[in-house]
Structures are given as C-alpha cells and as structure tokens.
C-alpha cells in the first residue's frame, strides 16, 4: 500500500515538476542571456488586477507564451505522414520524462525513524525496510543502461518529425538530429564505462552510495566528466550543437512544420532534457544527493587528523540531501544555459569530427587507463 501511494506521489511530483520546468527555464534562459549581454530582457508582459500590475521580472512572459501557444492555429502540412507527424512530438518528449524515473533524488526515507539517528541495521531489518520510501521512482537493476536505452529513443521523435513533415528542411534537420544523437550516444556510453568500472555497479543509487563512502566521481573520472558533459549537451540538441535546428540554413530544422502546442512540446522537451541531463550528471559525477562531508548519520569530517562528528536526526539528513541534489542540478542547469549563450554553433562536419575523432577515442583511452589503474590497485601485490 505504502509503496503504491508513495510511488504515485513521486511520479506526480516528478511529472508536475518537469511540466513546469520548461516555463521556468524559458524565463531563466531569457533573463540569464539578457544579463550576459548587458540587456534587461523581456519585462513588459503584465497582469493587471485593478490598479495592480504584476510583471514578476518577466515571469509573466512565460504564461503569455503558454497562452499564445495554445491559441495558435494548429496547422498541419497537407502532404507527409499524418499519424507520424502527430506522434513525433510525443515520442520526442516522453523519453526525457521517463529518464527522471531512475534518478535518485535523496536517500531512502525510513518513516518510523524520522527523528532517530540513522542506523545501518534499518536497511536489513525487514519490518523497518517495509515501511521505507526510497526517493527514486523506479530502482532498476539496469540503471544506467536504462538511461541509455530510453535516451536513445528520443532520437526517433526528431527523425520522425523530419520525415513526416514533407519538407526538405525538416528532412535535413531530422537526418542531422539522428546522426548527431547516435554519434554522441556512442561517446556518452563509453565515457561512462570507466565510472561503472570504479563504482562496480550500473545501479544509480549504488553509484551515489559509493560516492558518499569514497569520493565524488568527478575526482576519480575527470576526463569522463568532461566527455559526458559534452555528449550530454550534444544530446539536448542545443547550441553549440544545434545544427538539427540550424536557423541559418534549415529554417527551424526538424520542427519547421510544427505549430502551436506541438512545437511547444519540442521546445519544452529540450528544456526537460537539459534538466534531466543535469540530474544525471549530478548523480553520476557530483555525488548525487550527497552534501559534502554529510553521511547518513550527519556531518562527518575525519581528515587531516581533525575529527568532527555532528549527528543529525534522520529527517534532517534526508532534507539536506534532497536540497543538495536540487542545488547541484540548478548549478548544472545554469552552467548548461551559460554554455548555450557563450559558444557559437559548430559546423555540422565539426560536430561529427568532434564526436567520432575526439570524444570517442578519448573515452576509449579513459577506459583503458581506468582499467589498467584498477588492475594494479586490485592485484594482490599492490597492498
């Protein structure tokens, strides 16, 4: 019972959050780019209630955009494949939403012991474990592999949109999206192999636990971190990797022929992807929900001969962990937007070269080095 209630709640919260994320990120992106470019940014949309005018520093623009999107003519090309045309935006956004199912955003909550100090015995005690809620929607054994499988499905949406629109620009955009995403998925997958070898698992929650007990992934796999971030940005198809849209040569790429809400689904899908990829990078490389020096029992600092133990109740630890997860995600989203407004777009051939000739070999080399080091460390003579 508890399982069903908590899972439903978690799903609703996650989907509800991700549905809003596009509106908020739209505002963040506009304001952030404005600040970077010495502008004020949009601030004219106003809600008037009597004498009061609400501008909310431009947040109203997101609402106005939403209303505008709903009321736009839902135009469809006369040629092309109508079923696929309508299906494509859904296929593009659903995988991004699914991805958030496997990301742990906090430690397991033991409901009966909220005010107690954490005890490792809880996890093994069947009665206690039965009344516990993991802060992760689906704890899959395949973890990261699920992420790759589902993220790979996202490309189908873009490719189908390009194909079914009956437009040459769309088709070119769809082709570019497909080849780009497939290329970068290879580099993305291999860049994580090193991390999986160190963590000895593909489960995301165990990865976080490993990082909590040892150290953050970014310190043991710095190269993989850079490679993965690059590939993740490429996967979101945003600047500097936005040749599938390529306004200067392809009008709007694979969603040229989309209008109104369907277009909004593609656009918000991009923002959801930014959000989810940030969460993923956080989980794999930045210690997930772990706050520096905070263990499940509270604040623990045992380095350089200094020993500080500051025990917290279980619910405080959960709260701090959850907030730390959010904080890290917000930071990464901020950085992704910053990159998007800093770098100029690559040429299409440069993207392909970067993917196959730079990222892939670097990722393979990373695997080799990681494997060699691990072999030496784990060989009997090393200790």
């Amino acid at each position, binding site marked *: 019972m508890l399982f069903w209630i908590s899972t439903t709640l978690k799903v609703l919260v996650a989907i509800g959050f991700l549905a809003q994320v596009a509106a908020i990120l739209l505002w963040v992106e506009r304001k*952030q780019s*404005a*600040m*970077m*470019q*010495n*502008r*004020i940014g949009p601030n004219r949309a106003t809600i008037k209630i009597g004498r009061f005018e609400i501008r909310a520093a431009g947040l109203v623009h997101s609402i106005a955009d939403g209303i505008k999107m709903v009321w736009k003519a839902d135009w469809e090309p006369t040629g092309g494949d109508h079923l696929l045309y309508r299906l494509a935006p859904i296929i593009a956004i659903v995988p991004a939403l699914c991805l958030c199912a496997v990301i742990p955003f906090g430690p397991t909550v033991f409901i009966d012991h909220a005010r107690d100090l954490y005890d490792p015995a809880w996890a093994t005690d069947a009665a206690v474990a039965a009344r516990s809620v993991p802060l992760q929607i689906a704890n899959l054994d395949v973890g990261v592999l699920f992420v790759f499988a589902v993220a790979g499905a996202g490309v189908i949406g873009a490719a189908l949109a390009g194909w079914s629109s009956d437009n040459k620009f769309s088709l070119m955009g769809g082709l570019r999206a497909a080849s780009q995403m497939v290329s970068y998925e290879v580099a993305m997958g291999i860049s994580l192999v090193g991390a999986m070898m160190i963590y000895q698992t593909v489960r995301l929650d165990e990865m976080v636990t490993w990082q909590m007990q040892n150290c953050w992934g970014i310190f043991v796999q710095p190269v993989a971190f*850079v490679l993965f971030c690059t590939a993740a940005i490429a996967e979101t198809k945003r600047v500097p990797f936005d040749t599938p849209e390529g306004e200067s040569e392809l009008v709007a790429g694979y969603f040229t022929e989309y209008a109104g809400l369907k277009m909004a689904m593609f656009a918000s899908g991009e923002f959801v992807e930014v959000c989810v990829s940030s969460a993923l990078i956080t989980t794999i490389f930045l210690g997930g929900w772990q706050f520096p020096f905070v263990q499940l029992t509270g604040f623990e600092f045992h380095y350089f001969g200094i020993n500080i133990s500051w025990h917290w109740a279980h619910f405080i630890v959960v709260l701090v962990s959850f907030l730390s997860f959010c904080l890290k995600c917000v930071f990464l989203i901020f*950085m992704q937007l*910053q*990159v998007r*407004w*800093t*770098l100029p777009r690559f040429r299409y051939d440069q993207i392909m070269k970067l993917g196959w000739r730079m990222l892939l070999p670097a990722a393979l080399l990373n695997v080799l080095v990681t494997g060699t080091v691990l072999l030496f460390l784990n060989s009997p003579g090393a200790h």
Partner: protein
Amino acid sequence: MPGKTKVMKKPVRTLADQSYLLEVVKGLGTTLKHFFQGTGQMVSGNVPDAVKYPLAEGIATISYPEEKRPYAERWRGVHRLTHRDDGSPRCVACLCCSTACPAQCIYIKPGEYPEGDKRRGYERYPVEFVIDELRCIFCGFCVEACPCDAIRMDTGTHMTAFDEKSAFIYDKDKLMSIVSQHGTQKSENPRHEPGEATHPGIDRLRGGH
C-alpha cells in the same frame, strides 16, 4: 621618404587554442563576469543611465518609449511643412521636392492664389500636399531640394507604426500640424513676403511689372 612597413604577424594557433577546452573556459569566464555584473546591477537597482552614459559598464538597455536617446539636430524624422507668420504654408508648390524624391511619394496639387491676393502671380500654393510615409525612404532629398525651407524633417519623431496603410498617408493638414524638435511650426530662416522691403527679388513695386 618611403613609408614604414608594418609586418602583421600571423596569429599562431597553439595546442591550447586547438584543444578548444581552455578557450571554452575563458569564454565562460567572460560571460559569467557580465552575468554577475548585470545581475548585481539589476538587483541593487544600480543600473547606469544608458541615455546619459552609453558607454558605461553593465546594463545598456534604454526602455524605449519611456526613455529616449536624444537625436542629433540633423537627424531625419517625420516631415513637417513649415508655416509663414500668418499660418499659411511656406510651400510655393514648385514641385522641386516631388521631383527630387527618389521614392516618388510626394503628391502636390498646386493652385493659384485668388485674385487680389498680393502673392498672386508670384507664387502658387499647395492645394493638396500628400506624403506617403510608408513609401518614403527618409533620404531627406525633399528637404535639400526645397528652395523655400518649406519642408523639413527636424521633428525628431519616428514614423509611428499604424494598423492600416491609409494612416501612413500624411496630408497637408497633418503635415502642417507637426512641430519641430523645439516645438516651433516656423523655420529659423526668415521669410520675405512679396512687397516687403526685404524681399530680394523683383516685384510689382520695384521691378516695373
């Protein structure tokens, strides 16, 4: 003496440049600097006045309809027809402006002053004077061509964006109602009416008509 030759050095691309990563970090540093500067200014309300100090560091937006950048005296805005002392147009309907206009957007219907008017026989007046401001390219040739300083573009006003095309057709009354940047409907050049002592040309009194 032969001039000095300056040999431009070809920029070298180091391995660091080539790897791109370092440059990305540098670029991010620049944009982050601007981001925090701008955000700091917005939050603290310390935004420099972009109208007065256009080169100041930080936010440079001018919130247009509320704040305006002052235009130069010679900036070409919407046309106006200047007035004489008695409030009639200075225009003598010579058609110089409409002839000079490359966009051919000026239409003038000239007319004779009525019998008994002392200007009759010297000059005509525009019965209709229409400028299609939508066709106008704001080149200022009409102003240059006018021998009477009757048409000017010193209004300092933009063309307004109207909803319908007919609103862009400015007729004589409209053109005569527009004032200059300094609020006057006259021109600074004095006007000498026929019959006045200052009138430079030959007239009925002095020339033996």
